[in-house]
């Protein structure tokens, strides 16, 4: 018997349908710090878990709009004030030519914001998670479906949570005990 701090609990479910069913019950319960684990994406899981839409778009949009404006003004500044060179007989402020670079700058910064914003919102990178204390959990990459509840959850109680997971159809319920 391990004797460390309890960091959470996991329960195994038989198939994707059972996992969806469990996710809906978790959503309707008062637990908030739970997660569902499966070897492959399951359609409808987001709705079953009650996940809200990501706010990533609202982070990317202001970046995109400000950077396209920045690109445009930056080019205007370089070609009229910083380095006023006449190129192919065109006026110094030839805004027509700025579009392409302003656009490219917008795409570059939006793509970067999307990638790093996604990682940040997912709290990545992280090196460890309590579910890895369980040896059974390795099966999640192959053929097993799990629900996990973290001990940080306000409603978490060693006995009640185990009983709750049992009541929604979980089996092989295992406490995640820190053993390092």
């Amino acid at each position: 018997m391990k004797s460390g701090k309890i960091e959470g609990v996991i329960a195994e479910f038989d198939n994707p349908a059972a996992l969806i069913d469990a996710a809906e019950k978790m959503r309707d319960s008062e637990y908030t710090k739970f997660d569902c684990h499966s070897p492959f994406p399951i359609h409808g899981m987001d709705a079953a878990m009650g996940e809200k839409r990501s706010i990533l778009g609202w982070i990317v949009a202001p970046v995109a709009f400000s950077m396209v404006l920045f690109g445009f003004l930056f080019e205007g500044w370089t070609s009229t004030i910083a380095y006023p060179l006449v190129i192919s007989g065109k006026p110094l402020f030839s805004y027509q030519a700025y579009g392409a670079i302003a656009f490219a700058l917008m795409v570059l910064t939006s793509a970067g914001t999307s990638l790093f914003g996604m990682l940040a919102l997912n709290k990545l990178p992280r090196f460890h998670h309590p579910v890895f204390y369980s040896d059974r959990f390795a099966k999640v990459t192959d053929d097993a479906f799990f629900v996990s509840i973290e001990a940080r959850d306000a409603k978490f109680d060693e006995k009640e949570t185990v009983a709750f997971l049992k009541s929604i159809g979980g089996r092989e319920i295992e406490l995640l005990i820190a053993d390092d």
Partner: protein
Amino acid sequence: MKFDAAAFKLTDLNSVQVRSLGIGVLGLLLTVIGYFAKTEQFFFSYLTAYLFWVSIALGALFLVLLFHLTGTVWGVTIRRILETLMKILPWMAVFFIPVLLGSHHLYEWSHVDVAAADPILSKKMGYLNITFFTIRSAFYFVVWYLIAAKLYKTSLAMDSGAKIEHIKTMKKVSAPGMILFALTTTFASFDWIMSLYPHWYSTIFGLYFFSGGLVGALTLVIVIGLYMNKRGVMDSVITVEHYHDLAKFTFGFIIFWAYMGFSQYLLIWYANIPEETIFYLDRWRGTWPIITMTIVFGHFLIPFVGLLSRGSKRNFTYLKYMAVFILIMHWVDIFWMVMPVLHKTGLRFCIFDFTAMAGIGGIFMWLFWKQLGKHAAVPMGDPKLEESLNHHNP
């Protein structure tokens, strides 16, 4: 208008058919006055209106080809509407006759004496002459008719039980059909619009015309769908999810259109060669900049920002106004391509611009509603229909 949900068939279409036909006949009659009052103006107004509607039918044809090639799921419920729009293409050949008859008023190159005296046009006379122009236009319509008729027939055959052969036929027609579509649409735009200024040329012009038509087709489907849904027709078939996808497509192709337009502009602006810049110079004279800037803002920036968020694509009232706005902008775009040839000094609207639009548009919609009522309004035999009805955007 009623919808028989079991047979997927529209009934009681009389009122909308009569109304369309009435608008069409009245519009055409009023436009005919233009022929006697202002002959040149009449032909240019007619050509603008004609190009607007034919570009939409071509956009619909492209989408049907695309749907078959990609094996779309979400688009199955709206495919019959698109097929009906593309089925109007052969009828557009009839509406092409006035353009052909008015070619001396529209196309400078059609005057053999003028063309022969011009050092550039005299070299182009082998391509730009009335006989070859007519043959080419007839060829485009034959190609479009053959593709549209085959796809429509196969789609109808699926209604009474789908076979794997049907799906194979559609794919087999669509793959070469897509190539033929690209070539014929490009050359049609060269012949019908670009040759209005026979000295000028732009290789991207075909894509520009096609992308505008595609946006027009998508927004027209949105408008037609919402028109029917408002009357409680087909609202269980075309749901918010399908409008969301249509709006996504519209949004994407608004950007594609702007990309084509900007690519054409930037290269011409940068190279600064007089025979190329003349196109934009003509559109920057007098009051023409108003229309030029209207297109930049109305056909790109406003719809781009306006359709960016998810909520805007799923709000029916908002989407309806946006779709109508984009349709109007598509007309302004065609107007911008055609009209500066006639009114060189500045922007001028004429009553016949609008009567011609109503005239051809009314007949166009009349043909549409007539054809849509004949068969099931949804490809009911398509194996993917069930999945399409339950389509869900993440």
